[in-house]
Structures are given as C-alpha cells and as structure tokens.
C-alpha cells in the first residue's frame, strides 16, 4: 500500500471517531470547526463529474462517477504547481463552479493551443497557468477561456478513492510492461501505451520557459 493512502485513511479515522461518541447532538456540532479546517487546509474528497477528463477520470466503462482525494495543503500553503498535475480550480466564467483539469503549462511557457482558441501559439503570462482537460473535444478549459490565474487553483488530485476498481494514484504512466504474450496482459500494455502517447502529445505542445536557478 503506498504511504500516501495510509495517511489519507488515518485522517479519515481521526475525523469520524469523535462523531461516534456517546452524547449525541452537541458533541457532533462541537467538532465541526476542526473538521472544516482540516478539510480546508489539508485533504478533502470531491466527486468528479463530466467527460472532460476522460479517459483518466470518469471513463465511459465505469458506472460510477469518480471520487477523488484532493490535496489543498500543497496548493494553499506550499504553492507547489507542476506541469501534468490534475487540479481542482474555480471556473473563471462562473465563480460557483469547480473544474477538474490538468495543468499543461506554467508561466512563461509557449503553448500550441487547440481550437477554439484564436491564436495558434501563446506564451502564458506571469502568475497564470494553461489548463486542459484530457478529452479535448468535450472540455471547458484554457482553449476556451485562455490562461487562468494560479490563484484560482484550489487543490491537487492525489488519488481516486472510488470506485475500487479504479483506485490508485498513478496518473502519469512511467513503466510499461512489454510482455504481450499473455492475452490478459496484452490490453493492459496497449492501454498503458495509449496513456503514454497522450502524455507525450501533451508535453510536446508545450515549450517550457528556460528557468534560472530560483
């Protein structure tokens, strides 16, 4: 079991334990502030709906909407943004809506954009990021409304916790098992190669800005 998962489940236990105490009512409400602060600053769960991150999240083959564990600490306190992170951010067009997309490029990078964006290339301005959904044809992302301020980003996806068959925290494929003799493994290889190809397609469209030692 990866250590990240253990940390998340122990947090959940810490939160639910006071709620099952003896005296009902007041005891439950008493712990709400702590629960809210933990969920605000550290980790919380969100249900992901929509097709814009297929096939990474909510693939057509799944009956359930994915529930993801999101890390607010990394974004709120550490401000740790990386290219390739799946993040939850407030939509610039509708302040009540939260989008789950991938950071494709950061400030200073030159990005080859997709339609319907008017310019074929853009340099991402300072303090902003270029976000895209993994499914380019059904995604409401930077190709529609341009680069978004980093301040809009709220949390980073750590792992998918539901459904159990899609449990895991690997969203960037690294190792591909090339043993295709076993028919059961064959489709896994092809899916993994497809994921690698998608990742390569995303990264080749971004020319990272030359970074001085910061």
């Amino acid at each position, binding site marked *: 079991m990866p250590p990240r998962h253990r940390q998340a489940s122990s947090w959940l236990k810490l939160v639910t334990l006071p709620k099952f105490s003896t005296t009902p009512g007041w005891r439950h409400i008493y712990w709400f*502030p702590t629960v*809210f*602060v933990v969920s605000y600053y550290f980790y919380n769960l969100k249900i992901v709906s929509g097709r814009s991150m297929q096939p990474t999240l909510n693939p057509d083959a799944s009956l359930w909407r994915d529930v993801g564990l999101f890390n607010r600490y990394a974004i709120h306190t550490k401000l740790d943004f990386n290219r390739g992170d799946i993040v939850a951010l*407030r939509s610039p067009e509708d*302040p009540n809506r939260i989008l789950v997309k991938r950071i494709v490029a950061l400030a200073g990078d030159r990005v080859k954009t997709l339609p319907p964006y008017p310019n074929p290339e853009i340099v991402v*301005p300072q303090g902003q990021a270029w976000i895209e959904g993994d499914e380019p044809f059904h995604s409401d992302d930077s190709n529609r409304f341009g680069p978004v*301020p980093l*301040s*809009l980003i709220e949390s980073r996806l750590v792992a998918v916790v539901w459904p159990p068959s899609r449990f895991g925290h690997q969203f960037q494929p690294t190792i591909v098992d090339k043993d295709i003799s076993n028919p059961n493994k064959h489709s896994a290889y092809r899916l993994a190669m497809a994921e690698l190809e998608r990742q390569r397609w995303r990264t080749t469209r971004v020319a990272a800005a030359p970074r001085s030692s910061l």
Partner: protein
Amino acid sequence: QLVNLACATHLFLEYVGTVSLMSGPSMLPTLASSGEVVVEDKLSLRLNPASLARGDLVVVRSPINPTLIVCKRVIGLPGDVVCVDPTGLKAPSTEHVIVPKGHIWLCGDNMLYSRDSRDYGPVPMALIRSKLVARV
C-alpha cells in the same frame, strides 16, 4: 479543546469577516499609503453575490501572483463596457472593452501608480475575497 476554539476562530475570520492591515499607494487618497486598518466583510458576498456594486472596494487575490492580496475598486460588472484607461497612460483613452461573464473590472483610485485591470485585464469573480466595509 483549544484546537477546536482556534479552528472556530479561524473559520469566523475566513467566512464572516476580519480586520486587517493594508498598505500601498495605489488607493490614494482613499486609503493611506503607509498603512490602514480596515474591516473586511466576507459574509455578505457569500450570502448575496449580487450585492457587489460598481464603486465597491473589494479585496481580491492577485491574478498575477497567487501569494498577493490586493484591494481595488470595482469599476465594471459582467457585461459592462468599460473605458480601459481614461488617463491614457496604459492604453489609448478611446479603447473600450466588454467585461466578460463572471469577471469584474478593477481600478485603483490612484491611477498614476496602480497595477490593476489596465494591466492584467478583467479579473474572475472567484478571486474576490471580501468587501471593505469600514476603516478603523
């Protein structure tokens, strides 16, 4: 428990209102450059987002720097046609923009020395933290 009280206090400050110190020359002469203690009101915008009016002083997270918090005046609401820079410093004074859906146009009172929507364009409303209500 102390932890719970600290969390409750923090939640009050986060969701209802807070008193904070701010400084900077971009809102002269309304707010002093050397520092002002002001009362921020977060609750009224949460309960009634339509209560944001042109001319309100708002505190927003900076769109160009995720660590900065700035205070500016709302000039344009979504759908308004705004003159980008009447002083002509950063744009010709005939240039106008339409503020897109879900965004607002901010301008500092001290237009000679203010980095605001004239530099970074319309600001998404999700970045608004609170309205300034009073000066202490």
